[in-house]
C-alpha cells in the first residue's frame, strides 16, 4: 500500500509552506519522511542539499520538529522538559537556560516554567510543544497541526511566534486542517489527497485559478470533493 505516490515538491528557503489535505491524504506521512522518522520505500529528497542516507545527523541539527501530539513528559516541569530536549540539540549551560527563559517568556509561559506539564491546559501544552522544537533555532521547522485543539488566544500566540521565526530566516513547513489560518499564514500551499499533490501555489494564486472560489476552502473542496474521508 502506498501512502504517497509521485509527490514532487520544491520548497524555497524562507517560505511558510502549507501542506493541506483531508484526513488520510498523506500529510503526516510526508512530514514524517522529511523529518527522518520513516524511510520511503522509493524516491529521494534533500534538505539544504543533504539527504538522510549520508547526513542524518547534520539534517537533524538544522531541522526542528513539532509533532501533532504533545511530545512532552507530563510529570516533568516545562523547564525540565525544555532543558532535556534542548540538550539533545547540543545546547548547554547558560545558552540553554537563557534560551528556555526567553522562549517561555515570548509565549507567555515563564511564570509556569516550574509547573508540571500534566497540570497545563491544551493551549499551554501546545506552546511548550512548539518551544521544544525551536530551541536550537532550526533552519527548517516542520509542524504537524500545531494549533489543533487550542483556544483562539493560544492559536494567535503560536502563529505570531511562528511568523517571528520566519522573519528571522526559518523556513516553515506545516500541515493543518484550518484553511483560513493557512490562507492567512502560508506563503505557499500544496493540496494533497490520496498521496498525490493536486495543486501548488500561493494562496491568492490558487484562489484565482479556481473557478468560483472565494477562499482557500472553496479551492480545497473543488479539488478534493465533498465526500467524507472516514477510513479505518
Amino acid at each position, binding site marked *: 500500500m502506498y501512502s504517497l505516490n509521485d509527490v514532487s515538491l520544491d520548497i524555497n528557503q524562507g517560505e511558510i509552506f502549507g501542506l493541506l489535505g483531508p484526513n488520510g491524504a498523506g500529510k503526516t506521512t510526508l512530514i514524517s519522511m522529511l523529518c*527522518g522518522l520513516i524511510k520511503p*520505500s522509493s524516491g529521494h529528497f534533500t534538505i539544504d542539499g543533504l539527504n538522510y542516507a549520508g547526513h542524518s545527523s547534520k539534517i537533524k541539527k538544522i531541522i526542528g520538529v513539532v509533532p501533532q501530539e504533545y511530545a*512532552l513528559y507530563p510529570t516533568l516541569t516545562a523547564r525540565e522538559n525544555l532543558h532535556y530536549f534542548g540538550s*539533545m540539540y547540543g545546547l548547554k549551560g547558560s545558552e540553554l537556560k537563557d534560551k528556555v527563559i526567553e522562549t517561555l517568556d515570548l509565549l507567555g509561559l515563564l511564570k509556569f516554567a516550574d509547573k508540571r506539564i500534566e497540570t497545563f491546559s491544551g493551549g499551554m501544552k501546545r506552546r511548550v510543544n512548539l518551544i521544544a522544537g525551536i530551541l536550537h533555532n532550526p533552519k527548517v521547522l516542520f509542524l504537524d497541526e500545531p494549533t489543533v485543539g487550542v483556544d483562539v488566544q493560544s492559536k494567535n500566540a503560536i502563529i505570531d511566534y511562528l511568523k517571528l521565526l520566519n522573519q528571522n530566516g526559518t523556513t516553515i513547513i506545516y500541515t493543518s486542517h484550518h484553511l483560513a489560518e493557512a490562507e492567512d499564514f502560508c506563503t505557499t500551499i500544496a493540496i494533497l489527497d490520496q498521496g498525490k499533490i493536486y495543486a501548488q501555489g500561493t494562496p491568492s494564486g490558487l484562489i484565482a485559478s479556481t473557478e468560483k472560489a472565494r477562499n482557500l476552502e472553496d479551492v480545497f473542496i473543488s479539488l478534493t470533493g465533498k465526500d467524507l474521508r472516514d477510513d479505518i
Partner: protein
Amino acid sequence: MIYKIWMSIVKEFLLLKRDLGGLVILFIMPLVLVITVTLIQDSTFKAVSENKIQILLVDNDKGSVSKTVFDNLEKSQLFTVVTQIDGKPITEEVARENVYKGKFQLAIVIPKNLSTDLQAKIDQNVENIVSKMGFSDTIAKPETSKIIQQKEVKLYFDPAVQLSFKSSVMSSIDKMISQIETKSIYTTFQNQLGEENTKFEQKSFITFKEIIPKVNNKEVLPNSVQHNVPAWTLFAIFFIVIPLSINIVKEKSQGTFVRLLTNPVSNLVVIIGKTVTYSAICMIQFYMMVAVAIFLFPHIGLPSLNVEGHLFLMSVVALFSGFAAIGFGILLGTIASTQEQSAPFGATSVIILAAIGGVWVPVFAMPKIMQLIAKSSPMNWALEAFYDVLLRNVSFLEIIPKISLLFLFFIITTCIALFYDKKKRTV
C-alpha cells in the same frame, strides 16, 4: 555525547522520582517479597524440623519388629506415633480413612506375624548357609520345608502430601526396616553358631559425614537465608523489566520517543541513559535487600545473611543481572504497543524465567528437558553466579563465563529491539 547521556540519566531519574507507584514497585515490593518469602520458607523448614508430625501406626504384628519401628519413629524427633484413636486401637480401615481425608499425613500398617515370620525366614536362610559350611550335624535341623510369604509394610499418604516429603519418609522407613533385618540376621547367626558370648559388631561399618566448605579455616554452613536472599533478590532485579518496559511504551504513546528520533541524538544515547539509570536502581535494590538480610533478619527470628568477603563479587553479579533484565525490558518495551501488553507480559515472563531458572525448584531436580531449558535462562546464569560467589566461594575468574552470558543477553536483546524499531519505521 557524554553531556547528552548525562541529561538522559537526569531525565530518567526525574521521571522515576515523580512516579510514586513506580518507586513503590521498585524499592518496597522487592523488600516485602524477600522478607515474606524468607520468613515463610524458614518457618516451613522449622515446622518440619522442630514440630513433630503425627503419624498413625497400625500394629498387626505385636512383636519385636513393630516395637522397634515404634521406638525408632519416636526417637527420630520428626514424628509422634499415634496407635489409638478415641481410645481404640487403629485398624487399617480407620487409618486409611483418616489419612485420605487429610487428618493425618501418613499411616504405617505393620502386617500380622511380621516378627515371627521374619525370624523364621532368617532362621531358614542362616541354617542353609551354616549347613553348607559343614556345621549341620552340630545344630538342630530347622523346618526347611515351610514356605514363608514375603511381608509387606503398607504406607498410606495424604494425597496432598508433597512428593519430596513422601520419598524422604519412605527412604527413612526403608532404612529402618533394613536395620531391623540386619540386626536379626546377626543375632540368628550368633544363636545358630552357639556363640552367645561373642558379640557381633552390629553398628554400620560404613558411615557418612558431610564435609562443609571452609572459609578462612572456619566451616561455613549455608542457611536458608544464604539460599533465599540471592534467589529473591534476583527475582526482584528482573522485575525492573516492568517499569522499564512501561517507561518505553509511555515514551512511544506520549510522542517523546518520536521527538527524540528527530533530534540529533543516537539511539545509543537514549539506551545508555536508560541502562545507567535502571542499573543504578538495580544496585540500590540489591544493597537494600542485602542490608535488610544482614541487619533486619536477626530481629525477626531469621538467620543473618553472611556476605563476609563476598560483597564485591555479589555486586558484580547483581550489576550484570541488572544488565540482562534491562535488555529484556528494552526489548519488551519496544515490541509492546500498550502498557496493558507490556506489564502483564513482563510480570508473567519474569515468573516463568524464575521458575525455569531454578528460583523455586533446583535445576538438578527438574526433568532433563527442563534442565536443558534452564541452562539457557539468564535467571539461571545469574542465580548460579550468586551461589558460586556466596556458597561455593569461587574467585572472580570463575564467574566470568556466567556474567559474560548475562552481558551478551543484554547486547542481543537490545540489538533485536533496535532492529525491530528500525524495521517498523520503514514504509
